[in-house]
């Protein structure tokens, strides 16, 4: 990756395009940040609007719920998807097409239908528990996490790894945890990122299933205060980045060795 970047760096056109893209990405962000820091007019700046966020009722509770839902969604997702995709690669090849089609369905089915479906199909003991929303987030993250894992496993001699590990005395649980997952670590991280990003920002399903999550809360409070709403957007963006950087930091050591092999 770095090598590729350094060879094209000299290319004037590429640098130009990169610069324009960066401006396109950062200018609105800088503008929004500046706007969110305004205090009574364009000349005076403070963290007034950010303070306002924390003063609104429900901030902690809703953020708490979102973090719970996100954590559960990520865990459930990996717990379901890693073994499934592994199985598809080592012995279920003929079902791959079928599963691929299934994983696209959440993109095609309207969210309203999904929400209605969730209320009728999910077992009643899950209703009104955090798991209800987590399961739904696993479903809507499936197209992304499936592809991330599928790409990671394609081209890897998983069958040989599995045979070697079994031969060396590893149970299936051990194989998934200490052979498959670490050897496709970058893909596992990608699946995790995508699920996190999706759960942190999802609004429609939460609203339809009557959940007060962070995004629904943001939507409610931001109707009263335009500066506060901007501060919220900027704040959640930085929060999401911080989260992703943390994941990357913790995942980088393993990712490094797995990536080197390619």
């Amino acid at each position, binding site marked *: 990756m770095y090598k590729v970047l350094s060879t094209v760096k000299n290319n004037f056109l590429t640098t130009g395009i990169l610069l324009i893209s960066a401006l396109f990405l950062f200018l609105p962000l800088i503008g929004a940040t500046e706007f969110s820091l305004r205090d009574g007019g364009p000349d005076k700046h403070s963290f007034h609007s950010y303070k306002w966020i924390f003063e609104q009722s429900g901030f902690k509770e809703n953020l708490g719920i979102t973090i719970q839902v996100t954590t559960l969604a990520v865990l459930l997702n990996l717990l379901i998807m890693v073994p499934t995709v592994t199985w598809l690669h080592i012995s279920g090849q003929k079902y791959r097409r079928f599963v691929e089609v299934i994983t696209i369905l959440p993109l095609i089915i309207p969210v309203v239908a999904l929400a209605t479906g969730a209320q009728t199909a999910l077992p009643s003991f899950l209703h009104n528990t955090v798991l209800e929303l987590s399961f739904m987030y696993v479903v809507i993250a499936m197209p992304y996490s499936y592809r991330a894992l599928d790409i990671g496993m394609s081209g890897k*001699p998983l069958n*040989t*790894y599995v*045979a*070697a*590990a*079994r*031969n*060396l*005395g*590893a*149970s299936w649980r*051990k194989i998934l945890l200490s*052979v498959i997952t*670490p*050897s496709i*670590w970058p893909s596992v991280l990608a699946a995790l990122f995508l699920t996190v990003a999706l759960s942190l920002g999802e609004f429609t399903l939460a609203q339809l299933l009557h959940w007060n999550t962070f995004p629904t809360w943001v939507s409610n409070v931001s109707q009263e205060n335009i500066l506060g709403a901007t501060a919220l957007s900027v704040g959640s963006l930085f929060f999401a980045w911080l989260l992703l950087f943390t994941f990357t930091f913790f995942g980088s050591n*393993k990712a490094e*060795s*797995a990536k*080197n*092999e*390619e």
Partner: protein
Amino acid sequence: MTNASLVAKGLGRRFGTVIALNNFSIEVPKGELISLLGPSGCGKTTALRIIAGLERSDTGEVHLNDKNISNVSAHLRNMGMVFQAYSLFPHLNVAENVAFGLKMRKVSKSERTIRVNTILDLVGLGHHHKRFAHQLSGGQQQRVALARALVIEPEVLLLDEPLSALDAQVRTNLREEIRRLQIELGTTTLFVTHDQEEAMAISDRVGVMNQGGLEQIDTPDTLYNKPANDFVASFVGTMNHLPAQLEKGTIELFGKRFPTQKSGNESGKVNALIRPESIKVSIDETSTNAVVLTRSFLGAHSRIICRTNDGAIIHSLMSNEYSQELHPGNAVRLEILSKEIMVANA
């Protein structure tokens, strides 16, 4: 290190309509190295994978030290295996790869370190502990794989064409090393290969497989000189097939009568099987019976391909000393040096 005897009885395996293994039985006594040799698709790898527990068999049993282990899961069989494909775990370094099996067996960290060090020294990779698979050559990767399979002190070592992906010189070195280690550690070993030279060079006995069954299992010497049937004769080494007429158990070739392995009251059309090194080609203008087609220089020997006056193509292998004057187009005289000739039904 423990050494065990391995017995497979009547193994059968079918993939759809393809019969991969058909009533395959083999016995590997303690400490012996037996090779399974055969063309691709003959079922040798399937047999090995069934023995390792990585593949189920439709029929038959696998016994280890007189204990039926057919229903024991692969991860509990305590067999070491080296694969044809590079199988080192990419996220672990050499030492961690080798320690993997010990970790699964809950061997203490201090003992793990000692055993990993010892085995890595033994395979000549004492200074590569911290390297990752992508930093090693193919030969080194297979050495690590071998160390990883041996460090668990397996009852049986299973080698599934571990040298196929390597280049010629590395392959020769590593096969000698495998044999040295195998003798040193006394590990009962089953070695699958399609390379007959490899099988002959390092095995106590070689089993020749064809279409899911064992054709013959014998010492390399016997296999080459006394093949049990036409398939083994043709598969192991080069073999000339010369049509001949069997009369009372003997055949006539190039004006000379030879005894065969057939009994005295058998007659009919047969193929005489003759090794290239048993055919002498000489320039003798008085009684020629063939023409030289090509002569290829092979180092110490030359391969001379001739066409007999009857139209049969004959391969001869001769020392260069005696084959220098032979050139394509020469009319020559072929002579058979063997005392007895093996025949196969035509």
